[in-house]
């Protein structure tokens, strides 16, 4: 087998042409996913069964099925239905970009809501009681005590989820999107050199993950400045 180092160097800038779309998918899906996750979290933490039950079902469904299958159902499956093609959502659902964003957002929301729930459950009950004893309202206790502490507790798991999301954006290449993996697959089809091309893609993904990890480490250090260093 021949191995062509120069091919890696040549393909790197080509694959980087997909970087914009990769980061776009990551940022947009992460944002939508987070907003959705907070909604699901509030339902999941509610005392009303009719709110809890749908949230649990949602989380079970999206964590219990492969993201690739979810993407295929949205991209290939939904257009089978005439009413979908007639609906106001059709302009979105016929676009592979929006299908990818929808699948990634719906999927990550299930995980993120559970990550945040872990944070909320980790907040010391005594602190909530202290807030009550001081006369703080439920909203004040949530916004000043529970939320800031829950977010701090959830940060490490959340950074994990962002890294996972970065890698999940590669699945968008299966619905024709030319993000980094999509570009890499096209080059492989032209050059028949999968090793060099995918190694080049690997390098870029690793650099991105390193940036994400370092960013979160900085955020965690700042957020936990109140914790005594031992």
């Amino acid at each position, binding site marked *: 087998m021949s191995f062509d180092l120069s091919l890696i160097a040549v393909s790197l800038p080509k694959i980087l042409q997909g970087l914009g779309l990769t980061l776009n998918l990551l940022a947009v899906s992460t944002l939508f996913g987070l907003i959705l996750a907070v909604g699901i979290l509030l339902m999941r933490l509610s005392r009303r069964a009719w709110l809890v039950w749908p949230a649990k079902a949602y989380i079970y469904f999206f964590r219990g099925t492969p993201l690739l299958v979810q993407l295929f159902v949205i991209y290939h499956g939904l257009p089978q239905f005439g009413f979908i093609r007639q609906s106001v959502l059709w302009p979105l659902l016929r676009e592979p970009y929006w299908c990818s964003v929808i699948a990634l957002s719906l999927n990550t929301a299930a995980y993120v809501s559970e990550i945040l729930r872990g944070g909320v459950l980790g907040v010391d009950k005594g*602190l909530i*009681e*202290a807030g009550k004893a*001081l*006369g*703080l*309202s439920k909203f004040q206790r949530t916004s000043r005590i529970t939320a800031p502490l829950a977010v701090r507790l959830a940060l490490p798991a959340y950074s994990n989820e962002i890294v996972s999301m970065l890698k999940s954006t590669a699945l968008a290449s299966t619905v024709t999107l030319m993000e980094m993996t999509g570009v890499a697959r096209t080059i492989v089809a032209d050059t028949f050199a999968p090793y060099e091309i995918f190694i080049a893609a690997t390098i870029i993904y690793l650099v991105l993950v390193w940036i994400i990890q370092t960013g979160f480490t900085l955020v965690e250090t700042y957020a936990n400045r*109140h*914790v*005594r260093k031992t």
Partner: protein
Amino acid sequence: MADIIVLEKMNKFYGTYHALKDVDLTIAKGEKVVVCGPSGSGKSTMIRCINRLEEHDSGRIVVGGEELTDDEKKIDLVRREVGMVFQSFNLFPHMTVLENLTLAPRLVRKMATGEAEAIAMKYLTRVRIPDQASKYPSQLSGGQQQRVAIARALCMNPEVMLFDEPTSALDPEMISEVLDVMTDLAREGMTMVCVTHEMGFARSVADRIVFMDQGEIVEVSTPAEFFAAPKSERARTFLGQILAH
């Protein structure tokens, strides 16, 4: 003197477990009451019912003229006037000492930040740690944290202070610094209800001692009576156990 806390035939259940049985207790303004008894006797549960951290199942609780019911507004009104100090301090770890002290005055009393900070510094001085204002709770010793917690409650200018075993989580050498602050507070005329095992504090500060066992108030007497000649056999046994060493 006006009665500031009235408990009438109060009962509390945890499932089928009868945690408080027909508790009757009236506390006058300015009075200092120490609640003692073996663990599991319902002391903490009773004191936590006074600011509705626990809900009672029957009977009446009236605090400062307001009866505690499901009415959230009244609960908030009562909580504003009732300060509480916990065994585990419960300072907000992500806020500095000063932020811990000013949070409720700003949000609940709608006080301006400057005014709230001035009051906070006054109370920090009274608990003898004004120099720690900008630190985070984790940078303080247990005794200092508990004094901050006392100052935090005082910043709301409460009518009553509840203490739920305030020294039980402290290392022995830090207990007296907290008890000193509590003794000062008692001398200044604060109405206090303290669940504690510190019998020296009870003897010197309490107007009355409430002895509880198995969810009941077994006896209420002055410290002099209680320590010299407890009326009930259960109190005698309890005192024998905690004063044995």
